[in-house]
């Protein structure tokens, strides 16, 4: 236990007024926490705690005090204090030497429920509910491993309540998504930011990519390109380069390799590999497939469901299976005109 005295603040004043206690009687305080305010003629001063523990107030607010007077006490644990200590005081527990560990309220509740204490955790500075859950999960698995004495699939130990919880949380996220953006997306995209994913893959600024896309090997994408759900971008057979402001529709597949000969020869022939490229400002409509070695210029429009193979100049309309150039595109500022070739 330590005592709290009125310090000498000004050399020419012996008396001061204790204006306000910042901490309730019986509450936990930590070193450096402001305890109370003293007011002198022109200066008001906050006095801080110099020890961890539970506060006992001796002097009331708005009392005149003199230098050296004892105004309160700090008790190392709650039993000495006159008032009750709530169960969920912020838990700051001094472990061994100088390691202070902070336990959040939620974590404290969980620890209490599961009969854990700080010693059960690896040496760390913060214990959150997440950390407690992790520890519990690991303990369950350890237990199972011990019992069955064989490697186990962790998912089989997820309890029904856990699964319900998870489903519940996912439902909340789905609802939020619906409210905010009026859409339902698969769980992958629900949990992952589309722009972050694209930027993690090294794609240009402003490019977004659904989590449901399949990206293989060396794929380079410019800026502000939209990569739709369920698309396949294959850079495994050489560089697949896609420009800026390109829209890769849902279910589009762009390849740089094929295994036709490999399959037909029963594995005697190897894969054939060719670089593929799509220029800037192209619209690849949904469900189109672009074969290896294809080169598409800028400002091209590939109609839905086309199979594209070969080389195409800029400003082409590309359509059909196999696809041909069926017209050209003219762009003037914001206006686009589609000029289809006359059928022969």
């Amino acid at each position, binding site marked *: 236990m330590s005592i709290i005295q009125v310090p000498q603040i000004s050399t020419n004043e012996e008396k001061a007024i204790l204006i306000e206690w910042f901490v309730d009687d019986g509450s936990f305080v930590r070193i450096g926490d402001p305890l109370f305010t003293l007011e002198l003629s022109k200066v008001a001063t906050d006095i801080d705690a110099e020890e961890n523990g539970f506060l006992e107030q001796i002097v009331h607010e708005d009392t005149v005090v003199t230098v050296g007077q004892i105004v309160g006490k700090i008790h190392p644990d709650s039993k000495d204090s006159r008032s009750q200590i709530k169960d969920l005081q912020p838990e700051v527990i001094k472990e061994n030497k100088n390691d202070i560990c*902070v336990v959040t309220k939620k974590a404290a509740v969980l620890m209490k429920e599961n009969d854990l204490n700080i010693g059960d955790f690896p040496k760390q500075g913060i214990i959150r509910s997440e950390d407690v859950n992790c520890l519990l999960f690991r303990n369950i698995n350890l237990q199972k491993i011990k019992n069955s004495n064989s490697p186990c699939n962790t998912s089989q130990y997820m309890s029904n309540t856990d699964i319900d919880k998870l489903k519940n949380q996912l439902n909340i996220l789905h609802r939020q998504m619906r409210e905010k953006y009026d859409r339902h997306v698969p769980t992958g995209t629900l949990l992952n930011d*589309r722009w972050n994913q694209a930027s993690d893959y090294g794609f240009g600024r402003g490019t977004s990519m659904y989590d449901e896309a399949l990206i293989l090997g060396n794929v380079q994408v410019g800026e502000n390109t939209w990569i739709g759900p369920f698309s396949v971008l294959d850079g495994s057979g050489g560089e697949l380069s896609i420009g800026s402001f390109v829209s890769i529709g849902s279910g589009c597949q762009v390849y740089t390799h094929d295994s036709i000969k490999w399959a037909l020869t029963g594995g005697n022939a190897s894969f054939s590999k060719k670089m593929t490229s799509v220029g800037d400002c192209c619209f690849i409509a949904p469900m189109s497939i672009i074969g290896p070695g294809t080169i598409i210029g800028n400002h091209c429009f590939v109609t839905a469901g086309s199979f594209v193979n070969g080389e195409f100049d800029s400003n082409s309309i590309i359509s059909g299976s196999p696809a041909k150039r069926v017209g050209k595109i003219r762009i003037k500022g914001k206006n686009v005109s589609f000029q289809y070739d006359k059928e022969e």
Partner: protein
Amino acid sequence: MMNKLIEKALYIRAFEETLHELFRRNFISGTIHTCIGQEMAAVCLYHNLNKELDIVFSNHRCHGHYLAFGGTAEELLTEMMGRNGAICKGRGGSQHIWRNHFFSNGIQAGFTAAAVGYAWAIKLQKKRSVVVCHIGDGTLGEGLLYEAFSFSVLLEVPILFVLEDNGIAQSTITKQTLTGSVKDRVEAFGLAYIETDDLEPEKIVQTASEAIDLARNFKPGLFHIKTRRLCAHSKGDDTRSTEELSELWAKDILSTKINNNPEFNQVYQKFKADIIRLSGQISRQEYAVYESKAIPEPPPKNYTDCAISTKDKKYRQGELLNQALKEILSADDKVVILGEDIADPYGGAFKITKGISSLYNQRVFSTPIAEAAIIGTANGLALAGMRPVAEIMFADFTTLCADQIINQSAKYYYMYGGNVKCPITIRIPSGGYRGYGPTHSQSMESLFTGIPGLRVLALSRRHNPAMLLEKAICDNAPVLFFENKTDYPDYILTTPPAGMKQSVAQKSDTPYSPICFCPLDDLKADITLVTYGGAVKLLERAIEVLLIEYEILCDYFILTQLSPLRFQSIFESVKQTRCLVAVEEGFCRGGVGDELISEISQAFNRVSTGLVRPHFVPIPTARHLEKQVLPSVENIVDSVRKTIAKVDKN
């Protein structure tokens, strides 16, 4: 001798006449204030000055002073025409000239306190120089002039104020605005008063010699010269009648000489031809190049950070500041402190200067209540190579010296072409939570953070006050050192906030780097929190609540330098968290937090931001009202949770 003086005056006349011509042809930007009709006054007065030793503080009408004090027409023209190699690099122009012992400044009375400060420095440095400070009759309306008068007498400094009384202030006849008599005003302050007229040049030479000797022996005075302005104030703003003007021209000694004395006429014509030729040469030179460095480099010492070391644990902030001042005064005799009520036994309103005047009486000036003159005097001391530390008792009073800070301290370095430094430190106790009410509780830093040329620092409970103050005093830039009055009696915080450790990002920013903390166990922060000064206390309590109640982790920055702002380490953190809340006790609008968020939103897309600051009302006195207006822990916790909730993850 008199003929020589007249020739000198004719040179000035020829120069000024040429300027009118150059101005008409658009060779000079801005405006010019010519001294046609007043040349003799300066020439006769300066006959008694020692150009190696003495100092001139001139005003907007400074060309004559400059040339009479040994400057050349070439230097002056190059500066006014903004050409390469100009003494002030084209930044000062006609009104703001510097050259060795010569300073000029365009603000009425703006320089008078600086002149007193310079003179005080001369006295402290035990030199035999004298300072001549020019004012006009229009200056008699400015309050700072009288503050400077009283400072000069209190400090007994070697200064001679020179009043060039041409009877007209811009377009207003001075008689209409002047009450009482100049003599009475001056003598009321205890200054010596000498009255002359430039129609009697011999008399000026003689009386000026006496007045300057008197000043040199620490008897300040005012030398009143009646003179006549023959042209407009600047250009085209003369409302006097032609009859009036021709009467004045008839009295003019120089034009009489030019018209009636062929010898002088010849000399005058030759001067004019010379100057026109010179201006032609200069106009063919390259223009001066733009540079953006508005503030000198920070002190060269390699400071790694200003977080305090644990050995200082048991000190209160106020005690450390007091100790630091004592140590700095004992280590460096260039350091001078000045302010209101700072002397013993009182030792300052917050006791920061207690015990200092008893130790260093000569270098402590407990001033009259005159904030503008305090800063002005400090500016002058700084120009003379001293390192003054001024105290403004309450931050709220910085408005009283705002002109001195903004138009003087902040400008010298850039305006005088980087040739002059103004290493003043202004200590400013600020902040509320004490019930001192609307005019004694404000945090004024954001008034100054937008001013280029100033360094604005904020002390907090986490800074080592001694180290930061020493750095500020060693700094060659003018430093506004904001302290928080509620922090003085507090212990310095040495252990990191709950669940945090000092971040390594600390080291990358130099040299007034922010203090940064990040979560323990290398956990990723959910939000970046930024604060400074007195708000540190609040924010740290909020950080604890956020962690323990809501499991929110943060990167936490305490700014040291509020202007010029450096963002690097904060940017790094925001890149990760995409979420930032700034907490400050400053003004509700246009504060440091606003600036930070503006920079962040220019640098990043999709960052969620929040600001915690006082309400947009003056700070009330009653404790419960004040509490509502100023930021609180609850405000911070709320704002952080809202900001995190609106992070756009899609």
